[in-house]
């Protein structure tokens, strides 16, 4: 049963889309996995408002964005440490709040040194049709999400179901100790890729020492990195093979490309490494011009990173009385 309209978009911003955890089932039809770039932040936002992990929320690229609340709603805004307000007061991030009809949620678009994407979850989830197994927006394919497009002024964000017991959760913060190592110049850990024969013997070490930046060619499909040219020992033309977000491809010019959520599911460039899945959440918080480091690790460490991710996702959530008052205040 539908939960009715939850929000009205007053200002849509640069790139606000409906996203969930993506679609694996349509890879074989050439459809990217898609879904949230920072999967952890969306997961946390959903859990803070009592949603199932696969529920859809809003992914908001840092920019000026404003929503009007249309019914009493539990909300949580996670991800980038951007400046946001709730009516006239600062909006606590990574915290469940209870908003009332008429309230304004305003993201100023100002970032504090780092951060690119925020995630807004509403109790009850965002209602859009499931297309190929997901509610996520596939922008270039113009399907999924809200009519396959970005949200803009005047759009209504509908709730999938009426939230139950909204008061119970207001004021829950997500413990900072149970979040990924977000920050400026993140260290993305990667394991060696399968095509080392295409690269110079010290290519991985050289990549690890490079001062890398995200170039202007960066979007939800992938980031072209600058600051280092990988040595290709010979022209390496491969038959198209399955790839996934996290893969670091090296085109003939030697400038590495980190594949992100909307990457096409096949590629033909040699792969020097694969960023471990949890560190893609850190990568999701980068904008063009931002610095990053790549750190080679072994398979065991990469699996350990997944264990940390799973542990943080399961962290106990306790209401905090001080925050609870703030989370009910609404300015």
């Amino acid at each position: 049963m539908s939960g009715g309209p939850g929000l009205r978009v007053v200002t849509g911003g640069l790139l606000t889309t409906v996203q969930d955890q993506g679609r694996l089932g349509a890879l074989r039809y050439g459809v990217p996995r898609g879904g949230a770039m920072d999967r952890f932040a969306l997961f946390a936002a959903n859990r803070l408002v009592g949603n199932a992990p696969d529920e859809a929320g809003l992914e908001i690229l840092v920019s000026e964005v404003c929503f009007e609340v249309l019914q009493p709603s539990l909300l949580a805004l996670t991800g980038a440490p951007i400046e946001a307000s709730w009516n006239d007061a600062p909006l606590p991030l990574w915290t469940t709040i209870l908003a009332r009809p008429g309230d304004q949620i305003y993201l100023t678009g100002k970032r504090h040194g780092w951060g690119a994407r925020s995630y807004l979850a509403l109790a009850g989830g965002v209602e859009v049709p499931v297309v190929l197994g997901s509610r996520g927006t596939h922008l270039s394919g113009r399907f999924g999400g809200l009519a396959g497009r970005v949200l803009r002024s005047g759009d209504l964000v509908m709730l999938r179901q009426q939230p139950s017991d909204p008061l119970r959760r207001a004021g829950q913060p997500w413990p900072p100790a149970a979040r990924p190592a977000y920050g400026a110049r993140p260290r993305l850990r990667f394991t060696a890729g399968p095509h080392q024969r295409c690269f110079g013997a010290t290519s991985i070490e050289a990549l690890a020492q490079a001062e890398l930046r995200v170039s202007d060619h960066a979007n939800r499909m992938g980031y072209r990195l600058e600051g280092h040219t990988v040595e290709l020992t010979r022209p390496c033309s491969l038959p198209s093979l399955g790839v996934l977000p996290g893969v670091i491809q090296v085109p003939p010019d030697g400038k590495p490309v980190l594949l992100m959520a909307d990457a096409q599911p096949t590629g033909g460039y040699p792969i020097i490494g694969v960023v471990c899945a949890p560190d893609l959440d850190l990568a999701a918080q980068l904008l063009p011009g931002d610095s990053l480091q790549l750190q080679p690790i072994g398979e065991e460490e990469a699996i350990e990173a997944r264990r940390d991710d799973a542990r943080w996702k399961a962290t106990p959530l306790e209401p905090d009385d001080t925050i609870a008052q703030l989370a009910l205040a609404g300015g």
Partner: protein
Amino acid sequence: MQPLGEGALLLECTPVDTLTNRLMLALADQVTALDLPGIEVALPAWSSLLVLFDPLCLTRTRLEAVLTALVREVEPAPARPARVVDIQVRYGGEDGPDLPEVAARLGLSEAEVIALHTSQIYRVMMIGFAPGFPYLGPLPAALDLPRRSTPRTAVPAGSVAIAAGMTGIYPDRLPGGWHLIGRTEAQMFDPLRDPPTLVVPGDGVRFNAEAQGRRGAEGGE
């Protein structure tokens, strides 16, 4: 068989031919049918198979053992396509702007290129690059050309193209480096259809040259 990150195994095979493709397709089906907890998806490509798994649920060693056993036993998917899909193509002119250059570089007439391109049933080796883009092959050797040195930033939807021993159909307006020889009205991808693609790996595709009378009426030149 090599890891592609901590949650994927990539099986790459040679030679890159139809038999390998049939093996990969059969293997993908068998991996899916195993329904083994921890396996997320098996994605077949032309001559490789990518298996995504949850390493907290299934170890790579165990998955490798399972795949090795399957590889040893697997029978290639049938050579004969289960069905053949006919695709109507308007060759040359505005619909296939590269046809004159392709013909010149191959030392053929435009009519010969069209005749060769329509002379056989192609196998759908994989869908990739973009939703619904089929990689079809093998192409007659006489039509073998490398990709364009400068890719186009936008190729019109429905463009039928050749490159590197393959032929394909752009399902949407996309960037592309293949040679455009014609265009079809066939809708290659519809996210609301099941399956969403007009063709799936293992299908056959036959191109038919459409009568060219209409072009003048559209006033293209």
